[in-house]
């Protein structure tokens, strides 16, 4: 190429871009190419074992507090955000507009729209995917995704028989009919329906389901206890180095997750009796399973421009998310085994391998869930037959797994776990200054929600 021809092509390029500025959008044409979405910050209240310090706290108050902590950390009082999407797994019927009510009770502008999301334990992460997509599309510039759950203030449903009787009385036309309807109430009907975390279609609890999968994959008790001890030690170390100073706002006088046992060891965990599964092969204990927990979390997402305008430094880019579901009802797949399916599809779409990550945040519903996922992704047979892959996804560097602890130590208030993980992963990437994180959360109903973050 001669200098002359370079000059000519440069001239052409410049004159064209003067006539058609690259960024201009024709009037009335609102379709834009997707924009980058960033995780700007996160906040949660300390997680607390159910029946304890948050006994009197409602989902709404916890979510409001989590949002308000985010608002004060980033100086957003009075601000109108694009939207707030959050939810709870266990919800009172009066909380039909839980997230909007929480926004109204918060210091955000009352003109911030909000809606509830509910996807079992995937709620928090799914909410983030939803708002991230809207931001990417240019529909909104900023949002909060979050979740809250309490099993201390869980809705107690009235017994089905009693409900039918009362409805009959309600619809009665004459007082006589009403009285006779009410007279049919039997003492047994007054017992409330207990909330369960059993799967409606199998009648098995989540732990019982996982016990089957654990056995199938031959996950040992030692491996589970090791993962558990590490989760506690990692979370404790993260607290010690102040990692959570800008990720947690104390609530009702609680300053730390109270399920955390910093001195947890494999030896101590080995002493616990199995609670899920039967007989010899039972390996799942109260130690290597997450306890019922109360808590709430919120994550702030937005575009780079919005972040700049509000002088907030993005922590990580929210790259992509994927949700999978498996047919666990027939027993063809384990209840909590959807994540590997979602991961396989997400990696393929983003042209990445499982080894292309610096952090793996795999939600510890049970220690064995994480270990089953890892084993499945290493298995050539599973990856071929179930995921349709030529080669297995392979193994991961375990030193990059849940480096600041996860649900076994922190606890797991269902809908709040997604927000906890996104915020931690984003901050880890920000501290490292480079790299990628893979987030994976299994959920009831055979669901699995996964996402990729990248250092900003």
């Amino acid at each position, binding site marked *: 190429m001669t200098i002359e021809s370079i000059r000519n092509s440069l001239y052409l390029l410049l004159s064209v871009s003067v006539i058609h500025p690259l960024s201009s959008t024709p009037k009335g044409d609102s379709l834009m190419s997707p924009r980058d979405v960033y995780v700007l910050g996160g906040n949660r209240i300390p997680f607390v074992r159910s029946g304890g310090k948050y006994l009197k706290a409602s989902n709404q108050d916890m979510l409001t*507090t989590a949002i*308000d*902590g985010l*608002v*004060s*950390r*980033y*100086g957003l*009082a*009075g601000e109108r955000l694009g939207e707030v999407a959050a939810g709870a797994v266990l919800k009172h019927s009066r909380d039909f507009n839980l997230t909007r009510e929480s926004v109204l009770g918060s*210091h955000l502008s009352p003109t911030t729209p909000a809606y509830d999301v509910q996807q079992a334990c995937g709620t928090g992460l799914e909410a983030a995917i939803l708002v991230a997509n809207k931001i990417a599309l240019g529909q909104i510039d900023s949002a909060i995704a979050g979740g809250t759950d309490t099993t201390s203030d869980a809705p107690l449903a009235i017994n089905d028989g009693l409900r039918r009787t009362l409805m009959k009385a309600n619809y009665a036309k004459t007082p006589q009919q009403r009285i006779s309807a009410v007279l049919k109430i039997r003492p047994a009907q007054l017992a409330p329906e207990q909330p369960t975390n059993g799967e409606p279609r199998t009648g098995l609890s989540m732990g019982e389901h996982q016990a089957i999968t654990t056995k199938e994959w031959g996950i040992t008790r030692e491996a589970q206890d090791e993962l558990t001890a590490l989760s506690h030690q990692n979370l404790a170390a993260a607290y010690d180095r*102040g990692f*959570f*100073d*800008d990720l*947690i*706002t*104390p*609530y*009702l*006088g609680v*300053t730390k997750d109270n399920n955390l046992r910093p001195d947890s060891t494999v030896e101590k965990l080995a002493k616990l009796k199995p609670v899920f599964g039967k007989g010899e092969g039972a390996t799942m204990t109260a130690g290597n399973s997450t306890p019922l927990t109360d808590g709430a979390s919120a994550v702030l997402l937005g575009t780079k421009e919005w972040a700049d305008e509000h*002088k*907030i*430094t993005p922590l990580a880019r929210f790259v992509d998310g994927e949700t999978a579901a498996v047919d666990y009802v027939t027993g063809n797949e384990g209840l909590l085994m959807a994540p590997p399916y979602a991961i396989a599809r997400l990696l393929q779409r983003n042209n990445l391998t499982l080894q292309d990550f610096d952090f793996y945040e795999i939600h510890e519903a049970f220690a064995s869930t994480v270990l089953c996922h890892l084993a499945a992704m290493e298995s050539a047979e599973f990856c071929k037959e179930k995921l349709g892959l030529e080669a297995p996804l392979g193994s991961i560097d375990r030193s990059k797994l849940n480096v600041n602890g996860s649900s076994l130590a922190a606890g797991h208030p269902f809908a709040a776990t997604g927000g906890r993980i996104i915020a931690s992963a984003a901050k880890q990437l920000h501290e490292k200054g480079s790299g990628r994180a893979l987030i994976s959360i299994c959920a009831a109903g055979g669901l699995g929600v996964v996402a990729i973050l990248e250092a900003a």
Partner: protein
Amino acid sequence: MADTYSNLVNKNPLGKKVASQFGLPKPALLRRYKEGQQLLEGPAAVAGIGSAPVAASASAIVKASGGEVVDATPETSYDARLAAIVFDATQARTLDQLDELRQVVAPALKKTGSSARLVVIGTTPSELSDPEAAATQQALEGITRSIGKEMLRGGTANLLWVDEKAQGDSAVLAAPLRFLLSSRSAYVSGQPIRVRDADVPDVDDWHSPLAGETAVITGAARGIGAEIAKVFARAGANLILVDIPASGEALSKVANSLGATALQLDVTAADAGERIAEAVARKSDKLDVMVHNAGITRDKLFVNTDENRWGSVLDVNLRAQFRINKVLLDKGVKGGLADGGRIIGVASISGIGGNRGQSNYAASKAGVIGMVRQLSQTLADRNITVNAVAPGFIETEMTAKIPFATREVGRRLNSLLQGGQPVDVGEAIAFFAEPGSAGVTGQVLRVCGQSQLGA
């Protein structure tokens, strides 16, 4: 935190009667700042000795605020109750001249209303080479301190010592004079403030003097710190509020109610300075005001004070400030303190007078005073002022925990016969922060109702 006794003798008819019959102390209800309040709610009598060059500036400042000025002489008869007396004694060089002050101020004082103000203006004694002149100017302190103790109905008496070079500049006088005349100095009495020559911008917005400025306040989750934050927010500042992570819940509430930013940070953390600068850089291109308010007490008799009690108090109350200041004063640091900025500390009258069981605390608070005096000189060429307030008995959760009898004594042992409110400390700190206070540096202002402790 409520002063029940004061309410009883002020508001309850029977209480009032009992108090007056038995000559019980009757603490006045102090006038305090409210939005839109006039500087003075009555005329100000202004007079002076000799050419009284500063009296003219003082009159102009009062008039600019919408206030009425009466030129006072020994013979003036006053129609209305006076809200203030300003006496310019800057030219007094002989002891004889002090009698002129007596002749004018005494009759005027008899005509003052409630929460009235006496402000005497003198010349900084250390600037005078003639011994009698220096003695005459020093005498002003004795006079104001004594009158402070005689003032009735919540009145205060204070002294401004103005350097000779600053006496011609009314801009340098405006902020300090306005502060002492206003209700913002409700709990400041018997105190001298030195005013130096400085480059002071003309201020026209006295309601929001901190508009557009960024300030950091430590220990802001509750008590005095939360109140400083409120006063700063009222004055228009962008705020970054710091408190330990464990106080995050309260901190978040204070921050959100003021539209401020919360920073959960232990000021003793090794990287506290960097973390503060980072937070500032995220909000603004520079820091204008740094308020070191976070403080703790670990009381024990000196002989029983262990290493931990000794160390932790010095660490939070003093050592942390050195570390943070060092970072913020580094010109290369983004989010560091701007030239022309302010550093404001919170000392205590325990740091001046000492206190039984508080050797560690008094050490830290006296240390704050030492730091302020030295640092103000070092930073003079950057036009950064360094000052501290020394609160006396302030009604907070901290003082509410003192046993009743001790608390009652602490509360009444001052000229105003009552404890101060956290807002009083906030107002004094906001005064130091104002751009108009550029001439005030290296000072420790007691906010103590003229407490007898350490005086």
